[in-house]
Every structure is written in structure tokens, then in C-alpha cells.
């Protein structure tokens, strides 16, 4: 039986009629057409579906829709403003932090969470902060560089 849920996604109020146990991942992708959030494993191991929910990083494949009711959700689609890439996106582009791109949205959300909590992370902090997000292409090195480069950019540049 479908139930109505309301929540805020990337600053906008959204409604959907969904099965209460439908995964937040599927609500975002299917009901809201926000396909930037990706599925990699469906069991919370790879982090590709990472989004921020009430300021916490979650695997959206493990969150039932009902649990997200009333929540503030942030996805990759909300990172850039209309004309400017987020500093993390710019850094990933310049440093080669994205290759095939499938882990990138989740990686960007994990990095956003890290910088929100720790604006000047050490390399060890970055490794730990991204440990729940798997990338098979880069060997992580350029992702670490991207996050460090983004952190080094002035915060007023976002």
C-alpha cells in the first residue's frame, strides 16, 4: 500500500506516493527522476548511492522511504548552483578524480560530508572519510588529491 511522504530534496519540498519500504535510492531515481544517485551493490558496501540526510551521510539503498519522511536530503544534483560547479566538482575535474564516473556522485557526497565536519582534513582523514565509497578506476590517489585541493580553495568559493 502506497503512502504519501514529504521531504526536502536539495532545498526544495518534494512529495511522493510510495511503498513505505521502498528504498530512498529508488524514490530519488524513479519517483523524483534524480538519477545522479547510483546503485552499485544494493547492500551498503560500495557507497555509490551515498546522499546526505539531515546532515549525515547515508547509503540510500539501505534507507526505507518512510524513514526519510520529513528529512532534509542532499544529492549530487544539489551541489552546483546554476552557473558554477561546486569546489569539489572543480577539483575532481582538474585533478582527475573522476574516471568512469559511476562512483563519483556518492564520492562527492562523502567528500561534502567530510569537509562539512572537517574543513581541513589530513590525508589520513580523507582516507577514513571516503573508506565507505569504492572506486574501481582511480586507485583513489587522485580522489584524495581532489578533496585536498577542494579543501584548500577558499570556503567562500563554496
Amino acid at each position, binding site marked *: 500500500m502506497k503512502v504519501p511522504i514529504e521531504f526536502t530534496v536539495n532545498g526544495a519540498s518534494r512529495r511522493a506516493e510510495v511503498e513505505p519500504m521502498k528504498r530512498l535510492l529508488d524514490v530519488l531515481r524513479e519517483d523524483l527522476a534524480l538519477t545522479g544517485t*547510483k546503485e*552499485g551493490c544494493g547492500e551498503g558496501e560500495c557507497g555509490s548511492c551515498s546522499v546526505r540526510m539531515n546532515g549525515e551521510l547515508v547509503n540510500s539503498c539501505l534507507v526505507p522511504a518512510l524513514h526519510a519522511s520529513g528529512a532534509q536530503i542532499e544529492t549530487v544534483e544539489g551541489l552546483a548552483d546554476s552557473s558554477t560547479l561546486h569546489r569539489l566538482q572543480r577539483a575532481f575535474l582538474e585533478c582527475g578524480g573522476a574516471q568512469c564516473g559511476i562512483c563519483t556522485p556518492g564520492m562527492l557526497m562523502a567528500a561534502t560530508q567530510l569537509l562539512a565536519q572537517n574543513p581541513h582534513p589530513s590525508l589520513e582523514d580523507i582516507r577514513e572519510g571516503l573508506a565507505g565509497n569504492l572506486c*574501481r578506476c582511480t586507485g583513489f590517489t587522485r580522489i584524495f588529491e581532489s578533496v585536498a585541493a577542494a579543501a584548500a580553495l577558499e570556503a567562500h568559493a563554496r
Partner: protein
Amino acid sequence: MTVEHAKTRVVGSAAPRKEGVNKLLGRARYVDDLTRPDLWHGATVRSAIPRGLIRAIRFGSSIDWSEFVIVTAADIPGANHIQLIFADQPCLADGRVNHCDEAILLLAHPDKHKLREAVDAVQIDYEPLPAVLSIEDSEQAKEIVWGSDNLLKSFALDKGDVDAVWSKAAHIVEGEYRTGAQEHLYIENNGVLAEYDAEDGVTVWGSLQCPFYVHRSLLAVFNLPSDKVRVIQTETGGAFGGKEDYPSTLAAHAALLAMKAGHPVKLIYDRAEDLAATTKRHPSRIRHRTALDAEGRLLAMDIDVATDGGAYSTLSSTVLSRATLHSPGPYVCPNVRIRSHAWATNTVPYGAFRGFGAPQAIFAIERHMDEIAAMLQMDPVELRRRNFLHDGDTTATEQRMREPVILDKLLDRALDESQFYAKRAQFLEENKISTVKRGIGLAAFYHGSGFTGSGERYLNSLAGIDVTTDDEVRVLVSSTEFGQGTNTILTQIAAETLNVDYSAVMMAPADTHVVPNSGPTVASRTAMVVGRLIERSGRQLVTLLQAEYGLSQDYTRAEFFAACNRLREERGEVVSLCRYEAPPNIFWDDNKYRGEAYPAFAWSIHVAQVAVDTATYSAEVEDFWAVQEVGRVLNPVLAGGQIEGGVAQGIGYALYEKVVLQNGHMANNQMTNYIMPTAQDVPPIHVFFEEVPFSHGGFGAKGIGELPHDGPAPAILNAIRNATGAACNSIPLLPEDLLTKLVTTISTEETVA
């Protein structure tokens, strides 16, 4: 050596990834992001046993089957096979199964959530047959599961006369080396969306490497003419060889469902299905018998290569070929005998995976070199240096090294950057008083760029550029982007040759109705072979515009497009295509396996520093150096990323990634128990390039993508040898394997310094 290369504006620069912004904004469209009105979803019913006859298919009463479309082998309008090198693999099992998870039956339904229960409600009755599940079982041929003798392919290579050497050799060293299967673990699972229309035929969109492989296979399955099958690559979330041949099967399945359902059908695997049912790296067993003189010079190499190919031939013959050609390593030896065999077993067919047989072969020879050094009480570095190939030397296939070989320089750089000898000395002291034993080891290797032997001539690739009425230059290739940088380097090359901005050049869609067949996106051939075709196409267009359409020698962007417009007015379009031309003076004999095995070789030295905890038996790579010569580096950021990513996969291959097969089924088909290196496992990876432009590659490029996967495993196990004295000859090497090995080693021999 100082290397001069042509001054360039775009090539060699860190041009940003062409499709990067879309990926970073979350706007790149992968196959599962696509939808269609009236879209149905597909699912696959698979074999639960490794080998047997299908006696009955029963549909459980709990499901309203009238809602579903059901496809079996009987619904195939054309041939029930997947056309690759051979055509022995059925599209859908018909009466018998030859491996676990073989596709038997397909289902489609408008609601994807109803499919799982339906798949479970299909009961297959089998008459099981004895299964062959190892190389040894297959070669003993008690059960014949493929052809007349289980042999998928064999090669014999002879140089000189090894048997004349044994009696006069100062040393003879033997060893056996084994490698396990490895899963690609691209983060995007395999998936395809298919449509069928009686008029237009079959159209598929999918996550894939080789649009024309899928195209050719679909022609046979649907018995359709070429223009009635259309294959379009969607953004592809990693591939590594895992989307070279498998998408041909998946595309056929989705298209069969779409045809019968009368609806578009999306068939997307979840992780468990992708792991269980799709290809992996070939397991191998490689034996070396090596004769040396008193100074450690190679006199004879007798090499026996055996691979497990799985249930059908797929790409096993060409993987075996590359394993064969890489098995002697980057060394000179006057007498070489190689016998290689790919054996059929009742497991999911093994397939292409970055390196394509070379990582297996290089693991064996490079571990073996360290064992030879130990036996001869020589420095393993000096042993290698004494036997390296140099300019003018010949390989095992008697290919003469006509391009510069700078292995000594790469080795010197690797030793210097890693402080190899200082660390060896330091660890030797520290290990005496520590439960953590550190070591440092290296591997030296080449990787042949492009198709083997006559392969590139048979491919006869066609590629080029066009210019649209919107003043947009498009690169026309079937070469695909799946993270490795195809889009970026090919548009860099086009921009360079046409002297236009990088931003003015786009990729035409990888759509078989739009682009010519520039060959498959495999074998580290894109930069070298296809890059060269784009370079030639660009120069050809500029020459034409300058000769006949009034373009000056030193032109502006506006003048270039104005000249293109004049050409278009006269000829209707602005297209410049070039076809592959083999470098001159090369020959290859497929029968004797002799001649120019590859147009060019990329060369590399890897150094690994490891720490082995003798309390937990975990081995950790603490630091890693990769020094390589890949011809001209077209884009330093992307090239560095290729090396780092390949090294990380190689570390996983060595220490983490184990495919556990139980009765032919992958038991650990989840990311929770098939473990790849994480952000906390990958060491610092120091990457250094030396550039020797290759005269027949795109702006001097050779292959790069596969090379970095070849070295980590032997370098790491050589470092473990240095740290602990244990000669570990099998990968993956997990803590439980190391425990067994160290306990045995300590009880049977003195620790080797």
C-alpha cells in the same frame, strides 16, 4: 637518452576529461538512468548445476504467468549462439547446461519488483552429469565437456633448442606458479535496454565496450541484415574487459524479450547476478624450467602455460595467446620452448580482463626470477639487468627490438625513487627485532600494445572526423569511453591536428548507425592505433582544405570553418576517414608463432614495499613506485590515473580478491565478501613516465591501460619474499595462505635475508 617530440598545443596537456562535467553534475546518463514509455523489465532464470541435461521446466502455481512474457531458446529467430571468435556458446541453454548460472529462460514484466519471485517460481528439473571444475580435471579428460578433448586452444613456440642446453647449464631452476580468477568489479553492473520494431529491427542501448561485437552477435541471433540492428553505447561505469564480450549475450536477451513483449525491455543485473553470471580473469597454472650459466645469463626457458577457460571458448584463445607471448618476460634468451593450453571446465566462461593473460604470465616469470636469484645467491635486480632485452635483441618470437628499449633507465629510476637498496638494508636490520617484517621487491615487464600478430590487419579499422553545420568537429569512432579517457585523448588529437580549440571538438555518439568500425575498445589499442587514425584523418582534412579550398597555412578558427563550408557546399559533407595501415616491414606467422608479435611494447618497473604482520599474518602494501615508458603521454592527468588505477587493481589481485567457487558457482558473489582495496588499503602510488614516442602511434602513443595491472602481484610477492623468506607462488595471497606458508617456511628453512 633525450627524447624530442613534436611541439604540441593540446596533446600532452592536462585537458579536462571531455565528459567530466556531466559526470560530476550527475547528468551523465548510464543505462539504468534511461527510461521509456511502457517500459518492461527483464530477468533471467539460470542453471543451478554445473553440468547436466534439462528434463523439464515447470512454472509454479503461485504466479499469474499470463502477466509475464517468457522467452526460451525456441523463441530465437536466428541462430542460438553468441558470435565471438567461435560460435559455441548458446544464447539460451537448449536441453543442456554446461555451467552454473547459465541462462536458460528469460522473463519480462512491467513491474520489476515482481520478477524476483517469478524467477524463483520457475523450477528446472535436471539430469546432472559429472562436472569438470579444474585445469587438472580437464587435462586428464576423464570427462569430455568441450570438443573432443576439452582443449579450447593450444600454442607451441620454439626458438633454438632447449633440450640441447640442460646438460651444460650451470644452474637449472624450476617453479610452478598459480593465479586465481579475478572479478572486474566495475561499480556499474552490466545492463542493456532494448527495443524491437518490425520495420526498424533491433535497437539496444547498453553499458559496453565494443558496439560492433554486439552488433555482429545480434545479426546472427535475429537473422537480420546489418542495417536492422543498431547498438548504442550509453555512459559506461567501468568495464576493464568485463564489458568486452558479455554485453553480446545480455543484449540478445533483452532484445528477445522486447521482441516478444512488444515493449522496450530493460535488463539490468544486480550485483549478485553480475558476480555470479559474468566473466572473470582466467585462472592459470604456469610452470617454468630455466637453465642459466654460472653468471646468471639465461640459456634456456621451458615454459608450460595452462589456463582455465570455463565452459565455452569465448576469448580464451586470444587470452592464451597474450599469456604465451608475455610468459618469457622482458629478457633475452637464445632457447625458448613454450607450450600453452586453454582448458574447458564447467564454470562461467572466463573472459577479457585488463592485461588479458599477461598478468598471469608476468606473475609467473617475475616470481620465478626472484627464485632463480635466491638459488644463485644473486641480487634479483642484477639478475634481471643481466638478461634485459636491449635495442636489436630478439624476443622469443624472434621479433627484433627496432624501437629503443630503455629498461635499464627505467630500472635505475625505480631503484633511485624507491631507495630500493637503502630500504633493503634498513629492513634487514629492523626485521631482526620486530614482529612486523618489512620487505621491498620489484617486477620488470613489457606489455604488447594493440592486437596480437596479424590482429590489427584483420580488424582493418576505419575512423575519422567530420565537421557539422554548427561548426562542431566530431570524432567518428566506435572506440568507447568507460573511464579510461578515450573521449579526451581522441578529441585532443583531433584539436591538435586541425589547429582548433579542444572545446570545438566533440565525440560523435558511439552508435553503429553513426560511426565507422574503429575496432573494439580493448588491448590498449585506442591511443596507439585509433589515435593514429584520428591524427591522419585530421592532417588529411587540413591538406585537402589547404590544397583545394583556400585555407591558408596559418589559419584562424573562423577561416578553418569557412573552408569547411566551402568543402561542404561542393561535396555535401565534411568527412575525413582513414583506414589502418600496418607499420612497414613487419611479418607474423600464425602457424609458427613467430615474428612481430606486437607493433610496439610498453615497458615498466614496479617496486612494492610491504609490511607483514607475523601476529595477524596480514600483508600490507605500504608504498608503491611505478616507472614506465608508454610512448608519448597524451594527457598526464589521465595517464597517471590509468597507472594508479591499474596498480590498485593489481594489489587487489595479489592480496585481496578471491573468487570462491563451490561446485562451479561463485559462493562469495557479494561486495561484502568479495573484497577489493578501499581508500584505506591503497598505498601512496608514485608514478613516473619516461617518454619514447612510437613512430606509428597517435602522436607517438603506445598502449597504457593494461600495463599497470601486470606488475603489482609479482612485485608484492617478491617483497613478501624479501620480508619473510617465504616463497609464495600463488595468488591471491590471503592471511590464511600466508599463515600456512610462514608456519611451513619457518619450520623447514632458515629465513633468507
